[in-house]
C-alpha cells in the first residue's frame, strides 16, 4: 500500500484546477485551456498510479480511505476502488481530456467553460469512488450543476428547455432516491454501501425495513437510477440534452455521465435489493429491451445526427441493463452465463464511452465545418474531401455497431452470451437492435461521406492535427481492446467471478 490518498487525489485534483481557474480572473483563454487540460489529464495519470497499486486478484475494495466525518450521524468519508471503479476512472480519464480538446475552439467565456468542466469531471469521479451514500449523493447531484450550465450557456438554440428538462427530470428522480436512503438510514443507521450490502446479503436489510417499506425504498432508488441511465421509458430528456449540448459536453455526458446510472444499478440497487430486483426483472427486461430495440429504431428515424447518436446511446446503455436484469431474473444457477453477462456489461460501459464520445466528436467536426449544420442530408461525398476524417469516423462507427476486431464486439458478444443463457427469448429480441444499429449507422455513413460531393462538403477540410489528437487515442484503443480484451478483462474478471458465484 502507498501512503498517499490516491483516490482523494483522483477526485479532487480536477477541482483544484477549477479553483485555480476561478482565482485567475485575468488568465487568457489559451492559458485556461492549458490549465484545464493539464488538470483533466491528472485523472489518467493518477488512475494509472492507482492501477499499479491495485491487485485485481485480491478482491474487495482497495486503496480504501475511511474516516469518520459527521460522527453524530455515523457518516464516513469512505472511498474505495474495485475493478468496476477503476474501469470507470480510466474511462473518465480518457474521455474528459478528449472532450476538452474538442472544446478547444470555445472562445466565449473559455475560463468559465473549463472551470465548469473540471467541476463536472471531479463530481463524476466522486460518484465512481465514494462508498458512503452521503457524499456519493453530493457528487451525484453536484455533477448536474456544471452539466446544466454547460448545456444552458454553450448549447444550441434549443438549449434552455433541454437543460431545464434534463436537470429537473434528473433531480425529480434523485429526490425519490434521497427519500429512499433516508428510510434506509432510519432503519439501519448506516449509509455505507459495503455495510448495507452485507446486511442485504444476510437478509437483515429487508427485515429491518419491513416488506412494504423494502419495496417502496427499492422503487425510490430504482427511479433515481433509471432516470439517470436512462432506462426506457425514462429517457425522453436525453435526446434533447445530448443534442443541444456543446460537443465537448455531449462527449462527456454520453461517455461518462451515462455510466453513472449503470454504476449505481450495479453498486447499489443489485447488492442491496436482489430479491426486489428479481421480482421486478420480468418487467425490467422488457423495459431494457424497449431501450435496445425502440432506441435503435428511433435513431433510424432521426435526421439530426446528434439526436441519432443520442438514441444510439440509449440503445447501447440498455444492453448493460439487459445483462443485469437477465442475471437478476435468473431462476437457476448459471455462473458461466452470469459472469459473461457482467463482464459484457462492464466492458460495454467502457466501449460505449469510447465509441459514442468519438461519434459525438465527429458530428462536432461536421458542425464546425458547415457553420453548425448537422442534418443527415446536409452533407454527402465528404469522404472525397476528407479521407482521414472519414476513416477515423468510420472506425468509431464500426466499433459502435459491434464489428468483431474492434472493442464493441467483445462486450456485446459477452452480454448476448450471458443473456442467452439466462433468458434466450430476450437475446433473440435484442438482435433486432443490432440490425437497426447497423442500418442507421451505415445510413449516416452513406449520406454524409458517400455519393457525389454535395455543396455542404465542398471546401471540406480534412482533420487538423489537434482534431486527430482528439480522436486518435480512442481509435487506437478500439483496435487494441478489440484484439486484446484481456487488458480490461484482467481488471474486472475476479470481481465478476465473485459476483457470479454469490448469486442465489
Amino acid at each position, binding site marked *: 500500500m502507498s501512503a498517499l490518498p490516491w483516490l*482523494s487525489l483522483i477526485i*479532487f485534483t480536477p*477541482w*483544484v484546477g*477549477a*479553483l485555480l481557474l476561478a482565482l485567475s480572473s485575468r488568465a487568457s483563454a489559451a492559458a485556461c485551456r492549458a490549465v484545464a487540460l493539464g488538470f483533466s489529464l491528472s485523472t489518467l495519470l493518477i488512475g494509472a498510479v492507482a492501477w499499479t497499486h491495485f491487485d485485481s486478484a485480491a478482491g474487495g475494495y482497495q486503496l480504501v480511505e475511511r*474516516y469518520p466525518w459527521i460522527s453524530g450521524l455515523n457518516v464516513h*468519508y469512505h472511498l474505495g476502488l474495485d475493478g468496476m471503479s477503476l474501469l470507470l476512472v480510466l474511462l473518465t480519464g480518457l474521455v474528459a481530456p478528449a472532450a476538452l480538446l474538442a472544446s478547444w475552439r470555445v472562445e466565449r467565456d473559455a475560463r*468559465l467553460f473549463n*472551470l465548469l468542466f473540471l467541476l463536472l469531471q471531479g463530481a463524476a469521479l466522486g460518484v465512481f469512488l465514494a462508498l458512503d451514500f452521503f457524499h456519493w449523493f*453530493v457528487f451525484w*447531484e453536484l455533477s448536474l*450543476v456544471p452539466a446544466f450550465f454547460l448545456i*444552458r*450557456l454553450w448549447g444550441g438554440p434549443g438549449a434552455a428547455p433541454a437543460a431545464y*428538462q434534463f436537470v*429537473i427530470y434528473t*433531480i425529480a428522480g434523485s*429526490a425519490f432516491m*434521497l427519500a429512499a436512503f*433516508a428510510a434506509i438510514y432510519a432503519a439501519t443507521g448506516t449509509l455505507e454501501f459495503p455495510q448495507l450490502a452485507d446486511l442485504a446479503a444476510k437478509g437483515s436489510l429487508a427485515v429491518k425495513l419491513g416488506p412494504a417499506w423494502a419495496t417502496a425504498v427499492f422503487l425510490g432508488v430504482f427511479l433515481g437510477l433509471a432516470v439517470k441511465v436512462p432506462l426506457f*421509458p425514462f*429517457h*425522453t430528456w436525453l435526446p434533447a440534452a445530448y443534442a443541444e449540448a456543446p460537443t465537448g459536453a455531449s462527449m462527456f455526458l454520453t461517455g461518462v455521465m451515462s455510466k453513472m446510472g449503470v454504476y449505481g444499478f450495479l453498486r447499489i440497487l443489485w447488492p442491496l435489493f436482489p430479491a426486489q430486483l428479481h421480482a421486478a426483472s420480468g418487467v425490467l427486461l422488457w423495459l431494457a429491451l424497449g431501450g435496445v*430495440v*425502440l432506441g*435503435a*429504431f*428511433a435513431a*433510424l*428515424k432521426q435526421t439530426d445526427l446528434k439526436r441519432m447518436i443520442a438514441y444510439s446511446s440509449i440503445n447501447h446503455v440498455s444492453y448493460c441493463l439487459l445483462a443485469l436484469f437477465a442475471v437478476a431474473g435468473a431462476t437457476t444457477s448459471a455462473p458461466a*452465463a452470469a*459472469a*459473461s453477462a457482467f463482464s459484457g456489461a462492464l466492458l460495454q460501459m467502457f466501449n460505449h464511452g469510447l465509441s459514442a464520445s468519438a461519434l459525438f466528436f465527429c458530428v462536432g467536426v461536421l458542425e464546425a465545418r458547415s457553420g453548425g449544420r448537422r442534418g443527415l442530408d446536409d452533407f454527402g461525398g465528404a469522404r*472525397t474531401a476528407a479521407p482521414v476524417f472519414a476513416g477515423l469516423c468510420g472506425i468509431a462507427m*464500426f466499433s459502435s455497431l459491434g464489428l*468483431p*476486431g474492434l472493442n464493441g*464486439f*467483445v462486450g456485446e*458478444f459477452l452480454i448476448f452470451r450471458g443473456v*442467452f*443463457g439466462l433468458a*434466450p427469448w430476450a*437475446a433473440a429480441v435484442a*438482435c433486432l437492435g*443490432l*440490425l*437497426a444499429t*447497423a*442500418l442507421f449507422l451505415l445510413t449516416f455513413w*452513406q449520406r454524409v461521406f*458517400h455519393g457525389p*460531393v454535395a455543396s455542404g462538403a465542398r471546401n471540406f477540410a480534412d482533420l487538423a492535427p489537434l482534431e486527430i489528437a482528439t480522436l486518435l487515442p480512442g481509435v487506437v484503443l478500439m483496435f487494441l481492446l478489440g484484439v486484446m*480484451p484481456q487488458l480490461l*478483462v*484482467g481488471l474486472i*474478471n475476479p470481481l*465478476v*467471478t465473485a459476483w457470479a458465484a454469490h448469486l442465489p
Partner: protein
Amino acid sequence: MNVAAQSLWLIPALPLAAAGIGALTPRGGRMLAAGSAITALFASLVLSCLALNTALANPAVHAVHNFAWFDLGAGAVRLGWLLDPLTAFMCVMVTLVGLLIFIFSLGYMKEDANFTRFFCFLSLFAAAMLGLLVANSLLLLFICWELVGLASYLLIGFWFHKPSAAAAAKKAFITTRIGDLGFLLGILWLYDARGTLLFFDGGAGILEHASLAALSGQTVCCGLAAATAIGLLVFCGAIGKSGQFPLHVWLPDAMEGPTPVSALIHAATMVAAGVFLIARVYPLMEADKLLTAVPVHALTVVAFIGAITALLGAVIAVGQNDIKRILAFSTVSQLGYMMLALGVGSWVAAIFHLLTHAFFKALLFLGAGSVIHAAHHEQDIRRLGGLRGSMKTTFATFAIGMMALAGVPFLFSGFWSKEAILHAAHALDGSPALRSFGVVGQLPLAIGLAGVVLTAFYMTRLVAETFFGSARTAEAGDVHENSAVMTVPLVLLAVGSVALGFLGTPAFPWLQARLLGEAEVHGHSLLEGGGLMALSIVLVALGLGAGWALYGRRPRAAAAAIDPLAARAPGVVAALADRLGFDELYAATLGRLSDLLAMLAAGLDRWVWGGAVNVLAGLGRALGLISQGTDESVINASFDDAGAGLRGTGQVYSRAQTGDAHGYLRVTAIAFVIIVLIIVLGGIR
C-alpha cells in the same frame, strides 16, 4: 503436425500486415501498397502449400493449437487454429486465386486515384478470409466472417462517389447481417449448451462425439433436436453470405464493385464461405441424421434451399443483359448447387465444386473485366459483340471458363464437380431423411438437372452476344487486347479450370478421399452410374444447342434489336430482367416494416413518453401558480436535504434563472471547493 498448426496464424497474419502497411501509405505510394500486398499473399501461398503437404501426410488428423483469448469467470474464452485437408485445400485455393487476381488488379486499377487503398482493402479481405479458414473456433470463424463482410462492404462501395455503389454496399452489409443474426444466435446456443466453441479440443470440442451425442439427444421446442435447431441457425449465416434464397438479393448488386473484387470476393472466395462453414461444421449438421421422430432434419432444409437457389439463379441469369450480372446470378446458382450437395449428404462434392468453381468463375469475371476494361466500361452484352477477333486471349480463356461452367464433358473441371453433385443427389447415401421421402427426395436432383440446361443456355448466350457477330457500338469496335499483367492471370486460371477436374473424377477421386481423411483412393469405372452422366451430357448439349440456335446462328444486328427470347415470351423475359421482383417485394414488406417500427419508436417517444412528462410538468406548473415559488422550493428542497455544502449550489441554480450566473458562479465554486477541501483534509487528519 501440431507445430504446423501452431504457426498457421502466419497465413492470415501476413496479408493483415500488408493491409496495415497499405492503410498507412499515402496515395502516392502505389508500388509499396501493391508490392507488399502481393508479396504477403505470395508468402501465404507458399505457407499454404507447405501446410497442405503436412496435412496430406496424415489426412485423417485434425491438428489443432488452442489458446486462451481472455478470462471469463472461472474459465476463459478460447480460440485456436486448425489444420486438416479441408483447411489446407481452401487456403491454397484462396491464396492462389487471390494472387492471380491481385496481379490482374495491377493492370485493371492502374488509373484509379485510390490504388493504394484498393490493395489495402484487398489484403484486409485476404487476411480475414484466410483467418476464417484456419479457425478452430466457431467464434474466431464468426469474427473473420464479419471481417470479410466488412472488406466486402468497403470494396463494393469502393467507387463511393457513385450513389449506386454506396447503396449496394449498404445493402450487402445489411442483408448478410440479417443472416448473421441467426448465425449469432446459433453460436450463443452452442456456447451456452456446450461451454466451448472450439471445433476440436481433445474430445471436448463441439464437433466431437460427446458434444454431438448430447446435442442430438436433447429435444427443444416443436420436437426438434437441439442439433437441428442450432444447425439451422448456423445455416442462416450461410444463406446470407452465400447469396442463397431468400437472401440472394445483395449479390447481383455487389457487382457495383470493381471487377477484380467481383472475381475474388463475390465469386471465388467470400461467397463460398457459407459452403465452407457448413462443410466445416458438417458433423453438427448431420448429427440428427439418424433421428426419425423429428419433424425436419437440418440437411433437408439445406438441400431444398440449395436446389431452389440453383434454379432461381439460373432462371434469372437468362434474362439479364449486363455481363457481370449474368455472372453474378450464375454464381448464385452455382452456390445453390454446392448447398444442394451439402444437403444431400456429400460435403466433399460441395468442396470439390467450390474449388473448381473458384477457378473458372474467377476466370470468367476477370475475362469480363478484361472486356470491360478494353471496351471503355461498356458492360451491356447487347452493346458489345465481335470481340472474338480483337481480344484473342481473352476470348480463348473466357471460352474455357464458359465450358467449365456449362459442364462440357470430360475435359473441363466443372463437368466433374457437377457430376459429383448430381450423383450424390441421386444416391442420397448420406441423407437417409431425404431418401425416406421417396419421389420428393429426388426433387433436388430434378432441379439440379434442370439447372444444367439453363446454365449451358445462358452461358452460350453470353459468349455469343459478346464475342461473336460484329461490334455493335463504337466502344466495342475500338478494343485492343490488354497487357500481359492482365492476360497471364487469365491463362493460368484457364489451366486450373481444366486441370482441377482431374483431381476428383469418379475413376480416381483423390481429392474426395483426402478430404474424408482416407489414405487410399477407391475409384470405380465411369460406366457405373453412367446413365446419369449420359443424361446430363445430353442436357448440356441441349442447352448449348438452344443457346446457339437463338443467339449464335444469327447474331444480333444492332444494340437495340429485340432479344429473340423476348420476342417469343416478352412477359417472362421482362420479369426475369426485373429479377422476379424480389427487391420490390422486400422493399414493400421488410423495408416498410422497418420504417413503421422506426416511426412507431420515434412517435412513442415524442407523444407518449415525452407527452407524459410534459403533462407532469404542466401539473407542476399549475401547482406553482396556486402557490408561488413551489417549483423553486421543490427543486431546492432536494438540495437542502443533501447537506449544507449543497445549499450554495441550489442558490446558484435559482440565481442562474435570473440570468446573472457568471460572477456568482465563480464565488460559489471557490467557496464550494474550499469547503470540500477543508472537510477532506480534516477527515484525513
